[in-house]
């Protein structure tokens, strides 16, 4: 049985080694780069508007995107075994089972809700932008999965 201890800390360390500080610095840097690219894309390809307004919109979007981009970079580079509280075998842990069950149920919910919504929109001839519809589907999936996971945790925990 592998019982080799791995040093763990709050933010973990990168897959390629280095300290916690290095991982955080690279994640912040990556977050800034991604946010800046998004801001540039908004300025370049955003809706027609005076330059000042376009720049303002790009800056606001970049500020909002920064924590998300930071989290994304951190997640990609993180060696999960070095994160405080991470177990060695998550697949055998009950939390993994809850996640699996919640994901499976969410898939069923999304198919049902999307199907009913599509039927209703067709019957009542409601026309909504595809981007809005997709946003609702993604948001619903997140919320549904979180609720299902917490319910399983409450029942089985």
């Amino acid at each position, binding site marked *: *049985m*592998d019982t080799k201890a791995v040093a763990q800390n709050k933010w973990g360390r990168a897959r390629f080694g280095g300290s916690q500080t290095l991982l955080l610095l690279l994640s912040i840097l990556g977050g800034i780069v991604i946010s800046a690219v998004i801001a540039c894309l908004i300025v370049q390809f955003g809706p027609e508007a005076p330059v000042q307004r376009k720049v303002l919109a790009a800056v606001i979007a970049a500020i909002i995107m920064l924590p998300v981009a930071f989290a994304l970079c951190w997640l990609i580079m993180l060696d999960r075994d070095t994160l405080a509280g991470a*177990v060695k*075998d998550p*697949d*055998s842990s*009950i939390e993994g089972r809850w996640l699996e069950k919640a994901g499976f149920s969410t898939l069923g919910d999304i198919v049902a809700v999307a199907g009913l919504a599509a039927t209703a929109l067709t019957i009542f001839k409601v026309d909504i932008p595809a981007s809005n519809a997709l946003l609702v589907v993604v948001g619903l999936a997140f919320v549904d999965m979180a609720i299902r996971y917490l319910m399983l945790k409450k029942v*089985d*925990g």
Partner: protein
Amino acid sequence: MENNLSDYRKERGLSQQALADELGVSRQTIISLEKGRYDPSLPLAFKLASLFACHIEDLFIPEEN
């Protein structure tokens, strides 16, 4: 599924956290296993049997049809 995990664990003087650490799973997993609310995966069942030097069927009691 019923099991004798709690008895085996206490016999070895292991806490739930110590057993969880040995197996590389969360303490919640051990709690749920002992309460019979979670049926372990086959690899986890083998790990438990190996740790307690017994057979899987000594630890877990299948439900009668």
